[in-house]
């Protein structure tokens, strides 16, 4: 039963992932990516990694892809112009692709760990938390710091000082009293 489920979700995953890069419309591509995320979350659930599966949906489907779609819908990209440079960029792209493939083969090929003979029992959220904040606390903190730097950089790049634009200052609005705005001429 589990095998059938696994192959079903794997097939959907492969189909969705290949459609992401072959389909013309960028919004459809993003939606296929969402489908791919869902299928991989399902596969993780089969491995009883429920925390990772839920977080994948929560973070990538629920937040990242929504923002992606948000941008795609506003951009109104004409994909034909994007495709024009395909042949010209092919050698470089093929080279990068080959390097990535080589790296993955090297990393995955040296993976000598045997498959887990038994799946985790109990709450793996708690188990993950206790390892993440003790054994792996430094990598965890470093990852957090990198994300923080990226966030600050993004804000610094996009935020321009308000020179002439008018905007409201809520703290001043709240402080306004009746006497500031109306004057009673005659009772």
């Amino acid at each position, binding site marked *: *039963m589990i095998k059938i489920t696994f192959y079903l979700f794997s097939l959907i995953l492969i189909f969705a992932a290949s459609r992401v890069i072959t389909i013309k419309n960028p*919004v459809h591509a993003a*939606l296929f990516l*969402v489908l791919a995320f869902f299928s991989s979350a399902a596969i993780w659930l089969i491995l009883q990694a*429920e*925390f990772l599966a*839920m*977080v994948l*949906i*929560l973070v990538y*489907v*629920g*937040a990242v892809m*929504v*923002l992606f*779609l*948000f941008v795609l*819908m*506003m951009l109104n990209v004409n994909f034909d112009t994007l495709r024009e440079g395909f042949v010209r960029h092919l050698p470089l792209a093929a080279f990068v692709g080959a390097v990535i493939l080589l790296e993955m083969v090297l990393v995955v090929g040296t993976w000598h760990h045997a498959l887990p003979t038994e799946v985790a029992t*109990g*709450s*793996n*959220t708690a188990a993950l938390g206790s390892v993440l904040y003790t054994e792996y606390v430094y990598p965890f903190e470093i990852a957090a710091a990198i994300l923080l730097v990226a966030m600050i950089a993004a804000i610094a790049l996009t935020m321009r000082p308000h020179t002439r634009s008018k905007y*409201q200052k*809520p703290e001043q609005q709240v402080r306004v009293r009746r006497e500031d705005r109306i004057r009673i001429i005659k009772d």
Partner: protein
Amino acid sequence: MDTLIYLILTLLKIVVILVPLLLSVAYLTYLERKVIGYMQVRIGPNRVGPRGWLQPIADFVKLAFKEIIIPTKANRFLFVIAPMLVLAPALAAWAVIPFADGWVLANIDAGLLYILAMTSVGVYGVLIAGWASNSKYALLGTLRSAAQIISYEIAMGFALVGVLMAAGSLNLSAIVSAQSGSLLTWYWLPLLPLFMVYLISGIAETNRAPFDVAEGESEIVAGFHVEYSGLLFAIFFLAEYANMILIAALTVIMFLGGWLSPFQGTFLEAAFAWVPGIFWFLLKISVILFSFLWLRATFPRYRYDQIMRLGWKVFIPITLVWIVVIGIAILAKLPPWFN
């Protein structure tokens, strides 16, 4: 054979949950029109059936027989599938809701995460509906809705982090059990700021007044579902009310003690011991739902930039500070909640 029996039993349980849920959705629309009607010194629907009780059914029949119009140049497939994508997560989330002690379809460990994941997926229906309609108003409504839901989800998530810290579990039944004691040991008291943030964010997540800029009848006609008609339109409304009930149920489970009796730990406990847990659960949900309707009748719509300011600059800092406070309270084993 065992698998088959298990499947049939699960399907039956799903029916037992969904049929009352859809019925309450239908009558929540009736209740909303009545309650708001009385608050505005009107009578509300009173023509169909005795006191208007058949109004939701009449509404449904009317919508079911209307033509479904698909705009030219709309993306047909996505246009039709979008309302279902709004409704499905709203119903799927009910799988982990405990109605009473042990009355739960799937008592999974990561229940709280599952709920968060399901509620965050609901935005896709709105996004796709607005985009597939190929209409400017619909797209505007969609963009507003997506930005709003993303912003408030963060505050909501942080509020849930507080609950998870206090209960020490992601399992919804365990969260309710951790609150047992009395009315004062429910989490609304130690997590009061998070409770308020969660409730208000919940209204924003369901696109309800005063946060209903995604529909904004007076500015962008009806927002993301302006092009929808007939049954597809009805499904959007079904989803909105199902989401309201879901948010109310979650608030009750996480802050108001779920199925626990409010008289626990007082001299009235024995007198009310015969009342089943599900009664208290439904009663609390009804109170929260009534407050949602009350809010809609009371407040004018927020301006869009004010919504964003409230979400990012008020709610998120409040939740962050309160998470630290709870951390300290747990370390100090503050009675009666964390000992």
